[in-house]
């Protein structure tokens, strides 16, 4: 290939890459900028590219939209569910890796297969159950559901991490007098710390974004941020767009940060361990 041709090719790839990234970034950029526009400008023809930014929408979302209420719900429910699911999942994953017991692989597959269900399938009977148990519209109810969502995921994620610890380290710990549980807490857990934090963060992201169960199982006491975002859909056209974007921006901000921090483990997490990130 001549020098000119290879440079031309290289530039074409660069341009294509920029177009690709631009495609993925543009809606987020639009979301962010619309959040800073005055309501009239957010909904104008032609759409304004240059404008004076205002924080009005954010204030409105906080005071009139009661943003902090939804945020607090999302925060409490998601953080606690994520921690519980990860810890219990760690126990289970450790057992799968270190112990042998009957029909182990069947059990593991069964845990994985739960993920294959359409969420509506479990939502319906759970809705009936929860109504009878008065768990609808409670923090506890949604937490129970989110943990049961996060458990299979955590078990499979952490299984890979525990397999990476050489058994000899744990054997020496046990010879030195640690019991199974002591070894687990003092040796194994610290060794998989990156895996633990990745699992906690990934769980957090998925739970934060979860919509269907939140929609079905909450009403006034414990709605989460996605519900707040969706509530703007019914607004009269145009009047609430700027506010809606402000709410949306605030809703995704925390997990955007978390997501960028945990991106290394994304592929592994989203493919249930089928691929290493």
């Amino acid at each position: 290939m001549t020098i000119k041709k290879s440079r031309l090719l290289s530039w074409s790839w660069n341009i294509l890459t920029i177009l690709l990234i631009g495609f993925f970034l543009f809606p987020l950029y639009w979301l962010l900028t619309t959040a800073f526009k005055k309501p009239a400008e957010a909904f104008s023809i032609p759409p304004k590219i240059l404008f004076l930014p205002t924080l009005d929408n954010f204030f409105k979302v906080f005071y009139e939209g009661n943003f902090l209420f939804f945020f607090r719900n999302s925060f409490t429910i998601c953080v606690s569910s994520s921690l519980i699911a990860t810890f219990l999942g760690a126990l289970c994953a450790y057992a799968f890796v270190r112990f042998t017991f009957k029909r182990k692989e069947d059990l593991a597959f069964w845990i994985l297969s739960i993920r294959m269900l359409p969420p509506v399938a479990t939502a319906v009977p759970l809705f009936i159950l929860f109504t009878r148990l008065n768990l609808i519209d409670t923090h506890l109810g949604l937490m129970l559901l989110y943990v049961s969502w996060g458990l299979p995921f955590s078990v499979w994620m952490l299984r890979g991490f525990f397999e990476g610890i050489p058994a000899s380290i744990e054997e020496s710990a046990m010879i030195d007098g640690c019991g199974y549980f002591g070894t687990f807490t003092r040796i194994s857990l610290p060794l998989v710390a990156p895996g633990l934090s990745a699992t906690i963060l990934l769980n957090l992201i998925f739970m934060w974004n979860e919509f269907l169960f939140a929609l079905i199982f909450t009403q006034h006491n414990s709605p989460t941020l996605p519900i707040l975002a969706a509530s703007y859909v019914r607004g009269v056209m145009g009047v609430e767009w700027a506010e809606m974007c402000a709410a949306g921006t605030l809703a995704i901000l925390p997990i955007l940060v978390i997501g960028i921090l945990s991106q290394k483990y994304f592929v592994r997490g989203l493919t249930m361990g089928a691929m290493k990130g």
Partner: protein
Amino acid sequence: MRLKISFILPTILWLAILSVFPLVYSIYVSLTDLSLLPIARTTFIGLQNYLRAFTDEYFLSSLRISGLFTAGALTIEFFLGLGGALLLYRRFCGRAVARTLTILPLIVTSVVIGLVWKILYNTQYGLINYISRELSLPVFPWLTSVQTVLISIIIVDVWQWTPLVILIILSGLESLPREPFESAHMDGASNIQIFYYLTLPMLRPVMLVALLIRFMDTIRIFDTIYVLTKGGPGGSTEVISLYIYRSVFRHLDVGYACALSWVTLAIIIFASQIFLRSILKSFR
């Protein structure tokens, strides 16, 4: 021994109560005419719900719409994902930043994504039509016309999930062994030949994994479509999940909804089996 069990017990118990039991319960419910109406009495009706599903025009329509949506989304996501992975595999300045930016659509809440695209798609004030008008391109009523709405929601799904395909194929690319490529280069193969005869076949298992995962996710999709069209102009985007949701919360027909869920699950398992066989075959 007791200690071993206590490790896995919390997880198993939790899942048994909150995942397995509801499923079993829903099998039972699917054989009744349970309704959320307070005055209704529940009677056991056997397989009637299942028979009804096979002649229910709305359910069949939702199968068709889900099928179209999945086929369209998967095709575009596959090719765009493959291309994107190849682009991001090259070494260039700012590659790490580019990769980080690429995964952002995966992290953003589905509902928010739906809202943003709803703004962009707006027929009169949306940015897409504005640009089209300025460039003298045809203007479409994206979300409000039956002809264009399916493509519109496919594009949103493509925007949101292509990065996952890119990531999967990218990690596949990076785990490919060097030697075959080096020897191919030394034997004088052109880049296109290397790609077609070497890269693609070696990526086959990875691509199938990506397709399988995306397939399982698109069949069950709910969030974005609910926000974008709630089932679309005249039910033209009512995918399976939306129809089941409507059965429960609009028609209050829980028994039927449970039956529909199981039929859907059977379809997913059947289709996944086909995928899985292809994956296992390509590993040999």
